């Protein structure tokens, strides 16, 4: 194992998959000559040229659609949205076309495409640029939705997404690009399957399900709770659609309590879906109501103190764990 930043892990995944398969290409705003708005695609243009690393005008609906059309006839595009906030102008392409054509064509046409880019709040970019997009896309049958929290998952899942025969919404953490983590050594290929949860921390007292940016908030909170005698088991679903609850249910049978922590708004979305499934699949093992710690139900404010209030905090995680543990 070696340490790589999340951004570098994603870049490696694209390098490796483009090297492996000529049908794979990257298209988006500033992905080529600018070397990526967030430098994820740095170096790709130099290696693969303008044929396969394609800068586009500011036209998300257009290039998302071009990608889908190309995928329909056999290419494997990676479409980068500079941020997922801009995907909403291409929403129709993803929902009405990418997610539908396989069934509309009675299974004749496949759309092997990856839509990727940074997701969620960064820092003080305010309401229009801080969307956590998972709830919008997890609602749609015909899509996969992946949201890796670590560098290793980012690389292994992006490689799987590129090789998938279905449209994948790949949500990267805007604030996670610089976070380093262990990744298999060069030459060791790891494909992490879409649709499998991962045990991030073992503990017997309370299960916490989390992903994306709050993953790190939760791990820090878990350490503080451990100092107080409460050992949390942390599970990262990694893929939000399809959702793998087996590991969560298994954990709940041991801990009897669960807190779900996510950045997206509380109304619906994968957080609510997880709670719904767990209360049914593990009902007889629950010793307390399932709780959620979510982004507050407001458009993201600009002021830093307010933004910190809106995002899930360690304190809110600790409070929720104590509540479900009936601990003071």
């Amino acid at each position, binding site marked *: 194992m070696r340490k790589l930043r999340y951004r570098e892990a994603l870049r490696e995944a694209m390098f490796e998959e483009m090297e492996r398969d000529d049908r794979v290409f990257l298209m988006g705003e500033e992905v080529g000559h600018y070397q990526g708005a967030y430098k994820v695609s740095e170096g790709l243009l130099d290696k693969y040229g303008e044929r396969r690393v394609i800068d586009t005008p500011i036209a998300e609906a257009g290039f998302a659609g*071009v990608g889908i059309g190309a995928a*329909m006839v056999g290419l494997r595009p990676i479409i980068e949205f500079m941020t997922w906030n801009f995907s909403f102008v291409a929403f129709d*392409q993803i929902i009405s076309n990418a997610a539908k054509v*396989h069934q509309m064509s009675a*299974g004749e*046409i496949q759309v092997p495409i990856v839509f990727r880019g940074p997701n969620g709040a960064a820092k003080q970019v305010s309401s229009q640029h801080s969307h956590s997009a998972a709830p919008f896309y997890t609602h749609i049958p*015909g899509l996969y939705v992946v949201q890796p929290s670590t560098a290793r998952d980012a690389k292994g899942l992006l490689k799987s997404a590129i090789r998938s025969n279905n449209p994948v919404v790949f949500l990267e953490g805007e604030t996670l690009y610089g976070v380093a983590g262990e990744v298999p050594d060069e030459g060791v290929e790891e494909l992490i399957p879409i649709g499998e949860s991962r045990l991030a921390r073992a503990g017997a007292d309370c299960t916490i399900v989390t992903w994306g940016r709050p993953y790190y908030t939760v791990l820090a909170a878990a350490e503080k709770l451990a100092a107080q005698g409460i050992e949390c088991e942390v599970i990262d679903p990694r893929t939000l659609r399809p959702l793998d609850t087996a590991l969560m249910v298994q954990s709940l049978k041991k801990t009897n309590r669960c807190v779900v922590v996510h950045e997206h708004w509380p109304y619906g979305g994968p957080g609510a879906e997880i709670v719904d499934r767990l209360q049914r699949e593990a009902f007889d093992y629950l010793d307390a109501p399932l709780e959620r710690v979510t982004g507050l139900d407001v458009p993201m404010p600009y002021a830093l103190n307010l933004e910190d209030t809106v995002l899930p905090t360690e304190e809110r995680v600790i409070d929720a764990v104590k509540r479900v543990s009936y601990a003071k």
Partner: protein
Amino acid sequence: MMMVIRRFEEEAARHYAKGNIGGFLHLYIGQEAIAVAATEVLEDRDYIFQTYRDHGIALARGMPANAAMAELFGKDTGCSRGLGGSMHFFDVERGFLGGWGIVGGHLALAAGTAFKSKYAGEDRVTMCFFGEGSTNIGGFHEAMSLAGLWKLPVVFVCENNQYAMGTPLERTSPLKDLSIKAKGYGMVGDRFEGHDVEVVQERIAEAVARARAGDGPTFVEIQTYRFRGHSMSDPAKYRSRTELEQRKQQDPVALVRERLLGLGVDENALDDIDLEVDEEIDAAVRFADESAPAREEVMMSTVLAPEGDS
């Protein structure tokens, strides 16, 4: 072929009224010359995209009337196995990549298949049909922008039937001549009448040749007229009876018959063809009626494509 489309659409209307066909039904009657001419020009390997008014082009491309009618009836034997309906005909084998239901949404897809031709160095032209109503939506603009920018082998065919649903062109566009929009995207524009199949064929061929030669996309505006409402639920009260009657003087189907008679073709021979077409369409209705209904397992198994072999 124009007769096949005409009779198919008439029967579809009848069975919509009888309740055998549900949802939306948009008929192509009056515009048949365009579909027939365009498919005549294209090669088998080329790609075609169409809007929800897709029966005519699908039939012209060679989709059996049986598969088309069965799709309207929501049957497992339909071209989309009952999952698409009138608006979503597909025939991948014949390069017919769909009827699409969101105005302007499929233009970028056509640019995408054209992108693939260029990316993979394949000699395949994409032809994308849409109405004049689509030229106002963002999807049109973005697709045209990218196709023009990247000189993609695509022909954008605007079937200007004068009405965006119920709104006439003069109330949706400051331009009378839409083809000048092509300039804004750095591509060639063309504009002509669509009732004469020979004229259409000739002019479309120029655009296809341009695309195939790698000289970039063309925006073609073909002036046409639909004799029916926008869809079956549209009584088309926004246009006058006189206007309709006047337009019917330029019925593309009648024009062909007239021309053939003028060339000395035996009238009986033409009548025989008509009878043959009647039988073909009647058989299609019977086939659709007797086919097994759409299947739940097909529905469930086509949400996602099987993985592996990527």
